[in-house]
């Protein structure tokens, strides 16, 4: 009983966190699923967005302008990875790791060499804040994050339905065919990486407001959480969600489910220090599920009556 009430009181926080990370996971979806690239830049951009946002806000910049700047900073990081990958021919994973490494120094520069920076919700107009998580107002971060999710999904749905967006999807689906149809595959990869990292930085900016501080370590392991959300969403909803917008929604829901599961595990008494280990285990299991399903749980084929195959003696 005590466990249930503790869980219930922690649940709103988990949902809010999940929704904000859902935006980040949608960014990961764009590279991992749409472009078929494993982009590790996000471990850096998940700190950059927040750093840019908090520094600008503490210097008196409007929150929306700060968010826009965080988004642009993320796009710039994505651009760098894209150039490393396409123009310089570095494999995507390595290109992402290089940018991520460089971003650590850049993030420290942005935050004036401080490992973390606080922002006081009393003095600043924050869009989302941890302390409103149980408030039944429009300021509740769950509501705000849900609105962001819907707007982002709507924009992406529109964009990936345009001629340009379609060509980006084609780039991920079949680069050979894309080139044969006159699509500039390299430009599209850079563009996709920019959009993806812009979104991750936006999520980062929201997350730092939610927590009330920016941290140079905020992005550590972010890619794993993003992948977890993508994969959980896919495993659970791929049978019912076929439309592109719904697929993005399933990613957002995947992130929420991930944070709820983590909350349950924590409430059950596991140490916060074990969180990364738990995350890795959860992601590994969800990654293995589709494989196991196809290998060990194939649907038994029904042989039509009268056509039973009798094994040779």
């Amino acid at each position, binding site marked *: 009983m005590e466990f249930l009430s503790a869980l219930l009181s922690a649940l709103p926080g988990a949902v809010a966190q999940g929704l904000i990370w859902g935006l980040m996971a949608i960014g990961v979806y764009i590279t991992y699923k749409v472009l078929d690239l494993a982009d590790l830049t996000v471990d850096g951009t998940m700190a950059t967005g927040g750093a840019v946002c908090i520094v600008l806000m503490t210097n008196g910049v409007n929150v929306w302008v700060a968010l826009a700047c965080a988004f642009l900073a993320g796009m710039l990081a994505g651009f760098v990875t894209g150039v490393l990958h396409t123009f310089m021919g570095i494999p995507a994973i390595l290109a992402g790791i290089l940018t991520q490494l460089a971003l650590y120094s850049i993030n420290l520069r942005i935050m004036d060499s401080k490992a973390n920076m606080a922002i006081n919700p009393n003095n600043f107009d924050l869009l989302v804040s941890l302390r409103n998580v149980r408030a039944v107002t429009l300021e509740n971060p769950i509501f705000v994050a849900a609105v962001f999710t819907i707007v982002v999904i709507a924009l992406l749905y529109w*964009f990936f*339905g*345009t*001629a*340009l*967006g*379609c*060509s980006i*999807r*084609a780039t991920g*689906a*079949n680069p*050979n*065919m*894309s*080139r*044969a*149809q*006159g*699509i*500039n*595959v390299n430009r599209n990869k850079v563009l996709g990486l920019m959009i993806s990292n812009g979104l991750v930085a936006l999520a980062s900016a929201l997350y730092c407001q939610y927590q009330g501080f920016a941290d140079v370590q905020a992005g550590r392991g972010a890619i794993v959480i993003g992948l977890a959300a993508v994969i959980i969403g896919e495993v659970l909803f791929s049978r019912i969600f076929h439309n592109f917008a719904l697929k993005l929604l399933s990613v957002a829901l995947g992130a929420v489910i991930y944070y709820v599961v983590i909350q349950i595990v924590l409430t059950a008494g596991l140490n916060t220090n074990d969180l990364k280990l738990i995350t890795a285990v959860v992601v590994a299991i969800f990654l293995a599920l589709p494989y196991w399903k196809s290998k060990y749980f194939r649907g038994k084929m029904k042989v039509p009556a009268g056509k039973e195959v009798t094994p040779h003696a």
Partner: protein
Amino acid sequence: MLELKQIYKTFNRGTVNEKRAIDGLNLTLEEGDFVTVIGGNGAGKSTILNLIAGVFPVDAGSIRLNGTDVTNLPEHKRAKYLGRVFQDPMMGTAATMGIEENLALAYRRGKSRGLRKGISNDERKLYKEKLSILGLGLEDRMTSKVGLLSGGQRQALTLLMATLQKPDLLLLDEHTAALDPKTTDKVLQITENIVARDHLTTLMVTHNMKNAIQYGNRLIMMDAGRVVVDIRGEEKKNLTVRDLLDKFHLESDRMLLSE
């Protein structure tokens, strides 16, 4: 139309696997030529198609299309002039996208892709009409994912995509090699219909001598990276597989002796 001058291409230069794939090849195609290309494995048939398409650059020589020098143009820019169908049915279409989406991608070949709708309702009508000409029933499955189609259906669709915007040159790289004989005939029939209807200049690589004779107005045989036989007009019409085999052996013997 197409002018290849003194083309050279060597793969894996400076290694034990060094292979001179194209060796000073010259070839000129006239407007409306339907040229079939035959030759043994490693003769350079596919390589020359890939060089024309810009998949990889030439070591030396020049490629002109309709008077434009495209030698140094990247693949996606050359696509404006070219329609291509590949040997592997998986290669010409995006499996995870719908039939109409694939066609819409092809419809914008050589045009700018902006923030307008990726596919309009007028286009859908056009695609439906074009698909019904194929006679495969694909016009009723416009939103189906291409991954669900058979190899033959995919090749027919790729052919339609390659010619949706009239290409200056159609490149067919053994596009029936992965199909069964019946489907091969069907796809070749569709090919011939489209080429004739749109008066397309075409370069078709094939392994099948019968097909090479049956289709097109001109036949070239390649060996060791060069054109060794070039037959057209009346002579091509009266050609038999027997003649072709004789020429083939003659040429390979000559090559052996010269080495």
